[in-house]
């Protein structure tokens, strides 16, 4: 019996440790009950979920598939250019409407493969074969109301070329939802048209919050990742900020890039054993800045909870889409993009700097690798993680060496999850 199964059998009480956010109980990473509650509270609740880029839907009839946790949805563009998000699930018998990542619906209609119920791009049921019968059969009953049998439709919004969807009518506007971090969002999604560069997808055998935690954990970044301090991408003695926003729901990270930082040594770098490693790069273009696109020489990561981390490292832009699949598995989907008017050298730089991130990134591969190996231990042990670096508070920290963003997030999480 894994921990998760013991929980289901009520051997373990789902009660947060008394210490508060300085302790995380291992059962939040294993319990299917918690997992289901998270989906209801966050993904299917009052949240905006990332579902794609506007540029993925070039014309009327275009569609793309997206995932909101274990649910697949279809994002469409109708003939008026409007964008809709509907569940990939027929109102008749739950058939998937499409198996494809993207494409174009003929005649602007979504036709179910099983019995050909036919829906408009906004999910409303338009027709079905033999609706009024045939050859003596009466067809559908007179009281069948097509309006009651459309595809489930989500509210959809677009900001800066990025598409977001929510299940709830009373989710605040996307802008209010994002809150005070919005300028960081707008810095990247500033009205320049976006250009899709490609996807890198990973399936990871651990709870999705380990990934979320890891992005909130500046502390590990200087200790696990040699590349970060070695090449001065950022460093414990550099200009680094982790700023909880919206009561800990979303967290902004920004750090100034100083190309000279990598060459200095001091009592901070003495603590970094990873700096001891003796090696050099043959081609430093991967770690060096290509151009200072925003004029602030800054790299950023902005976790817009629950679905994304929006990231700009040098010239690499990506939306890291966290897709929970079960309590013990998640997909991490990297959506890389640039601007439509990027020249060839700029695109090359985006691809080049993307070697730092993604499934084989000099930095990011270590993240996924390390979190995947936590899962066997949390499955087995009813333990308490100790989150005390930088004190016990939840305020913004202006250093890498702090776990305050994790504490801030779990303060928010407990409140929303009622734990």
């Amino acid at each position: 019996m894994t921990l998760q199964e013991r929980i289901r059998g009520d051997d373990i009480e789902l009660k947060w440790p008394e210490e508060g956010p300085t302790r995380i109980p291992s059962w939040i990473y294993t319990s299917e009950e918690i997992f289901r509650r998270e989906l209801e509270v966050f993904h299917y609740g009052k949240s905006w979920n990332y579902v794609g880029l506007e540029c993925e839907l070039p014309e009327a009839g275009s569609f793309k598939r997206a995932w909101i946790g274990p649910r697949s949805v279809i994002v469409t563009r109708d003939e008026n250019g409007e964008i809709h998000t509907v569940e990939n699930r027929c109102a008749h018998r739950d058939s998937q409407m499409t198996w494809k990542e993207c494409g174009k619906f003929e005649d602007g209609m979504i036709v179910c493969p099983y019995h050909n119920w036919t829906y408009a791009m906004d999910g409303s049921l338009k027709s079905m074969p033999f609706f009024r019968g045939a050859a003596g059969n009466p067809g559908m009953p007179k009281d069948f109301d097509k309006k009651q049998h459309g595809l489930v439709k989500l509210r959809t919004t677009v900001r800066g070329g990025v598409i977001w969807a929510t299940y709830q009518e009373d989710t605040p506007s996307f802008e209010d939802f994002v809150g005070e971090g919005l300028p960081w969002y707008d810095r990247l999604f500033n009205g320049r048209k976006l250009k899709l560069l490609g996807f890198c997808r990973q399936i990871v055998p651990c709870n999705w919050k380990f990934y979320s935690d890891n992005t909130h954990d500046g502390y590990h970044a200087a200790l696990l990742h040699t590349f970060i301090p070695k090449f001065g991408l950022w460093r414990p003695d550099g200009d680094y900020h982790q700023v909880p926003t919206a009561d800990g729901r979303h967290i902004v990270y920004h750090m100034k890039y100083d190309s000279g930082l990598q060459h200095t040594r001091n009592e901070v770098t003495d603590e970094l054993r990873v700096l001891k490693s003796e090696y050099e790069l043959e081609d430093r273009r991967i770690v060096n800045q290509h151009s200072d696109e925003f004029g602030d020489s800054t790299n950023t990561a902005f976790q817009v909870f629950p679905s994304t981390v929006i990231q700009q490292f040098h010239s690499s832009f990506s939306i890291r889409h966290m897709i929970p699949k079960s309590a013990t598995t998640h997909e991490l989907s990297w959506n890389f993009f640039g601007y439509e008017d990027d020249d060839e050298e700029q695109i090359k730089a985006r691809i080049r700097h993307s070697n730092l991130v993604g499934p084989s990134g000099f930095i990011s591969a270590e993240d996924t690798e390390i979190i995947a190996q936590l899962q066997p231990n949390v499955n087995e042990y009813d333990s308490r993680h100790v989150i005390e670096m930088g004190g016990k508070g939840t305020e913004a920290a202006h250093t890498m060496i702090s776990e305050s963003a994790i504490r801030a997030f779990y303060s928010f999480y407990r409140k929303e999850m009622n734990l």
Partner: protein
Amino acid sequence: MLAEAKSLEQQIRDFYEEYTICLDDADYDRWSSYFTDDAEYKIISRENFDRGLPMASMSCEGIGMIKDRVTALVKVLVYEPRYWRRYVSSVRVKACDGNVIKSGANFLLYESMLDREPQLNMLGQYHDTLVRDGDSFRIKERFAVYDNHRILTTLFAPV
């Protein structure tokens, strides 16, 4: 037995298998010697490749970046130790123009961790441009296109 006695197809097949052996043996320094100085090397999803999207999961522009991948793999990165094993099949010569050969093959990559059962990590096909180099060849361009929809956890293994 002289190499000249072999058909081009055989030579190319031998080349692919030697390359595979080199990687299975974790002889990474030799691995980088299979590439030209200006080689382009990508491990890219079938999804991106078929849609013409340029982003790859691993992208190297030139021998320097290829060697840096070796450095990272051998000296730098933290990852779970394992054995990788590659199977190459259906080696094909698509075109041959002087010293430049367009070729390809199917590949399978298995990995065996130290505490659980082996698993298929990646499968797909190579789309390559080779150039003759004396009795052998060098890779000028390799697109290792993987069919799997998602990378299994992480991608550390060169193919």
